[in-house]
């Protein structure tokens, strides 16, 4: 893969495209984790 042009933005900047992809990826996995754990912990009387 060609690395993105790192000089296109000031140092230590995430950039819009990367921010969008990162936010989507994080939201997906964290959302899945929170949803599944919430549903599991709300299930009555099944834990040992």
């Amino acid at each position, binding site marked *: 893969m060609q690395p993105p042009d790192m000089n296109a933005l000031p140092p230590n900047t995430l950039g819009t495209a990367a921010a969008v992809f990162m936010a989507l*990826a994080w939201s997906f996995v964290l959302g899945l984790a929170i949803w599944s754990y919430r549903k*599991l912990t709300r299930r009555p009387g099944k834990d040992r």
Partner: protein
Amino acid sequence: MAEAQREQWGSRIGLILAMAGNAVGLGNFLRFPRQAVENGGGTFMIPYFIALLLVGIPLMWIEWGVGRYGGLRGHGSTPGMFDALWKNPISKYLGVLGLFMPVVVLIYYCYIESWTMAWTFFSLTGQTQTLDQPGMAAFFRSYVDLENGTVHGFWLPFVFFAITIAINFWVVSRGLTAGIERLAKIGMPILFVFAAVLVVRVLTLDPVTVTREGVTTTQGPLDGLRFMFTPDWKALANPRVWLAATGQIFFTLSVGMGSLVAYASYLKKKDDLTLSGIATSATNETAEVVLGGSLAIPAVVTFFGVAGAVAIAKGGSFDLGFIAMPLVFNQLPGGPIVTAAAGVMWFGLLFFAGITSSVSMATPALAFIEENFGWTRKRSAWTLAAVATLLGILHIVFNTRGFLDEWDYWAGTFGLVVLALVETIIFVWVFGPTNAWNELHEGAAWRIPRFYKGIITFVTPAFLIVMMGWWTVQEAVPTLLMEGVPAENVPVKWASRALLLAILGFELWLIRAAWKRKAAGRNA
């Protein structure tokens, strides 16, 4: 053996942490970031999540389903599970894959795991704090290549390997709840806390100015995230990227290994599979995408620049973890104590990621021996420990001769797809799509959307067949023919293969002996 005689998980959270611990391994922190930057950055996430939904999570459900079905009939490993699902004389022999692969991977995985323990020790004692880049590289190579062992004593890798084996088998010898489940309940929170602390530290680093090959650049951790997540849309048209993403999902979820089914065999009839399978996958994905993606690449880009990070990543995942990261820690503000603490946390989290996976790999073989030959857990555990130690020594001695690579390719890469395909065909096609669907929903806390029945029946096997075909043409044939292997390594590679075949043959013989024993018992 009846259900009541088998051990069962002590708690639902213990079960999920153990399953997630099985899945979360070294690859989450070392392999994933490298795969992402090499395969399209942000766009890698598209095939990656599609593969998760179409292959990863369905396979997770299938493995939990196969495991529980077999476990309720007294089988903790795939020979018995496949025999229960498919009454055909060949089915138990197909199940040898679920014994062979975890044992083979366990042996070399424990060796790599022992590196993380060694580097935790080196970090604690400050042995890497004064090294520059060539020095750090020599420090690492000296440890993993005994022929060039100029820095460490010859004996050191053997000592850390023996300690790692002893800890692993001490845990499994204690049984399911007192050993494996307790390890998961302790190890997984530590892993997440260490990773979260390091992520916060890395992402709050100030930008650093670096001069490399006459070019001066200034960059910070957000540039590392930009490097990792900026989409390269052209990559989506490349089939190699899709296969890399599917392969990463395979490795990261530990599907097709035989260890998830073994853990699932200790479930009760009315335990939930559907939601627990998703929770396990989501825990692993959080460790990989959120934590693994925010550690190595942002840290290395900050201190080495993008060009430096690319050069290091080309050297492999271990260069990233064992050479670049200690160099990063040496440059952290705060002095030797901060450097040591960061090193202990990084290698400590890798150690816990490793051990929660390796104990799962020992489980199928131990269950098979206990259930079919009446051995106690302790006796079978320490016998397997002795075998693993002896065979592991060969890996230490011949590591750089390609001995480990052969085992890693045939058992730890190609074999995963083969077993996943076999178990999918047996569970979904032979056992029947409706039976499989009903089995998954026995005791379910959540109903899987109906369209997933079609995905599990057709799409997941199709993905696996394409992947196996691609890997056969692209990698298996050249690997088999030893293309590009230096002539001096060829004898070692053949010896490595002969040993693999010997292990496979021995396990096939064990299966035959076990079934003969059962038949004799029935007749008596």
